[in-house]
């Protein structure tokens, strides 16, 4: 008898807790940590030397990927002997602005730009899809993103995107890893402070694909997520994972309005 009462009480407790949690999280679901006039790109927090390298297109190592991407974009490939440029007009203008809206919904799924490129390779050009973090995909995505340089980030979280947005938001605030850290603890609450030698930024992704000097390589948004996961000693997810896309959507939305800066340069 006592046991039944006890478990009933426990049930009520759990239930009311859930109700409460629901209420709190719905309340400020669409609140952003930074207002539009407070948004600052990662470049603002990086060192002057690094920023100078980013600004100078002759020095910026990320431009190598942009150039390689431009060549690939215009190269005829596959049995159809087609190039991306065949479909996307000769002067490339057709894809200008496109990068500002990714990740976006495609056939009920949220996909990012690298995945979209792979779909074109596979479905429109009869080529084998490439690894998302391969040189070819990152070159094409760097080039296509570069076409939108200076245009404001503008992802949509309406309609079908909303549930992915909510998932992404949840992931952003979830404490993970042996260090038990969540993204917001560093990028909402500690921006401007130093984590050892590193000045913490607001954690935006308007500079991706981004050239990381420590790896002497270009990195996708998902690669950067893996790196932050490593630092919290959390299990990283696979590049292209649905949860990383959801997280990418939340972070992109939180920075909507920031001009695209890819290829950015970071330490």
């Amino acid at each position, binding site marked *: 008898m006592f046991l039944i009462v006890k478990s009933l009480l426990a049930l009520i407790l759990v239930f009311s807790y859930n109700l409460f949690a629901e209420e709190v999280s719905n309340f400020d679901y669409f609140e952003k940590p930074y207002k539009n006039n407070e948004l600052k790109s990662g470049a603002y927090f990086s060192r002057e030397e690094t920023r100078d390298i980013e600004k100078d297109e002759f020095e910026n190592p990320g431009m190598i990927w942009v150039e390689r991407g431009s060549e690939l974009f215009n190269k005829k490939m596959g049995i159809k002997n087609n190039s991306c440029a065949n479909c996307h007009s000769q002067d490339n203008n057709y894809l200008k602005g496109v990068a500002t809206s990714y990740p976006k919904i495609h056939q009920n799924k949220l996909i990012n730009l690298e995945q979209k490129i792979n779909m074109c390779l596979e479905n429109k050009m009869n080529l084998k899809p490439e690894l998302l973090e391969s040189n070819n995909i990152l070159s094409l995505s760097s080039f296509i993103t570069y076409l939108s340089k200076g245009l404001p980030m503008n992802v949509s979280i309406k309609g079908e995107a909303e549930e992915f947005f909510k998932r992404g938001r949840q992931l952003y605030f979830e404490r993970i890893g*042996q260090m038990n850290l969540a993204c917001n603890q*560093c990028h909402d609450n500690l921006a401007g402070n130093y984590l050892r030698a590193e000045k913490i930024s607001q954690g935006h992704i308007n500079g991706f694909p981004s050239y990381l000097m420590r790896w002497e390589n270009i990195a996708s948004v998902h690669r950067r997520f893996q790196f932050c996961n*490593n630092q919290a000693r959390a299990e990283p997810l696979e590049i292209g994972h649905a949860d990383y896309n959801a997280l990418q959507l939340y972070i992109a939305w939180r920075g909507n309005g920031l001009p695209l800066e890819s290829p950015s340069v970071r330490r």
Partner: protein
Amino acid sequence: MYIKTLIIINLLIFINFVHANEELVSYDIVDLSIPSSLTNEDGDIKNGRDIVLSRRGNCLACHKIPSGNDIFQGNIGPSLAGVGNRYTISELRLRLVNPYVLNPDSVMPAFYNVRGLKRVDKKFREKPILTAQEIEDVISWLFTLKTEEM
């Protein structure tokens, strides 16, 4: 040769398994402190200093610390200069073992805890960041930091 490596691999897995299931030392929290030592041995002050200033404790990621010759010191937490003056050994022990008791939102990790964690990397699963003895070593050195001078 093949059999030998197999045996070694099995042994390694077994040892890992035993380690992974090792229970953490239990402790009582009294007046926002942990009065009893987690081990039977005194803290080794020199080893404590090494842990704090090296990647092992990685305390410099967030704190400024006296005699940290490293010019790269974080400023997320308070400076640890004079921390031995501000707190007793028992209070320092709680701050390392479980800072969430004092501040549930703390960015400082609990250095001796394996509970309630999500998605921990395989390499670190079921292991505390520092061992019980390492905690004792660290707090014995922190307690020597008596002045505010860097």
